[in-house]
C-alpha cells in the first residue's frame, strides 16, 4: 500500500482565514480523494482530485470554499477558505490501490475558533 503523509497534522485557526492542507504520496497514483470527518460523524467525500484538471466536487461542496490542486500524480492540496467554526473537522486524503481499495492519510485535525 502507498505511504501517505499530510501537513499540517493539526491546526487551530481564526474565523475568516484559510488553511491549505497538503497530501503527499510515495508513489504515483491515479485517484486521489479528499474527505471530511466531522466530530462524532463518519467520513464524507468532499471531492476527487483530478491531475491536470479541475476537481470533481460532491453535492454540498463547492470550489470556492474548498479549492483543490493536483499538480502531479503524487501530490494534492485542499484549501479550506473563509473558515467558520462549522469547518472544524478532520480532513483526510486517500488514494486508490491496485485493486481499487482506498488507503487513507493520517488526517489533519482543524479547529476553527
Amino acid at each position, binding site marked *: *500500500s502507498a505511504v501517505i503523509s499530510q501537513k499540517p497534522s493539526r491546526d487551530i485557526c481564526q474565523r475568516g482565514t484559510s488553511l491549505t492542507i497538503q497530501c503527499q504520496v510515495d508513489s504515483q497514483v491515479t*485517484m486521489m*480523494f479528499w474527505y471530511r470527518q466531522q466530530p462524532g*460523524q*463518519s*467520513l*464524507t*467525500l468532499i471531492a*476527487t482530485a483530478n491531475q491536470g484538471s479541475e476537481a470533481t466536487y*460532491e453535492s454540498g461542496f463547492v470550489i470556492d470554499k474548498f479549492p483543490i490542486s493536483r499538480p502531479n500524480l503524487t501530490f494534492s492540496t485542499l484549501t479550506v477558505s473563509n473558515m467558520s467554526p462549522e469547518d472544524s473537522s478532520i480532513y*483526510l486524503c*486517500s488514494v*486508490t490501490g491496485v*485493486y*481499487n*481499495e*482506498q*488507503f*487513507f*492519510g*493520517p*488526517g489533519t485535525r482543524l479547529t476553527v475558533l
Partner: protein
Amino acid sequence: AQSVSQHNHHVILSEAASLELGCNYSYGGTVNLFWYVQYPGQHLQLLLKYFSGDPLVKGIKGFEAEFIKSKFSFNLRKPSVQWSDTAEYFCAATPGVGSNYKLTFGKGTLLTVNP
C-alpha cells in the same frame, strides 16, 4: 441513493467475547465492500475487503466478514476480541463496475473491549 448503514453505534464487550458488527448497503448493482478500523489516535486502516468470489473474506488481526447478497449485508466478525481491538469500525462500499471508486461510509461503530 447509495447508502451504507451500521446497526450499532456503540458496542461494549469483555475480552474473549465474540463480536459481530452489522453492515447493510443499498446499491443497485455489483458492489465492493470494505471494513476500516480507526484505533484511538491513529489513522484509518483497511481491515478487509470483498470484490468477488468467496463471500467469506478474512482480514488482518483475526477479523472476517461475510457477504450475503440476498440480505445486502457485510457483517464483521471476530471469535474472540481483545482489549487492543478497542476502536471505531467503519463499513464502506463502492460500485463494483465502472470507474467510480468513491467510497460511501457507514456512520461507524465504536467498539469498547473491557479487560
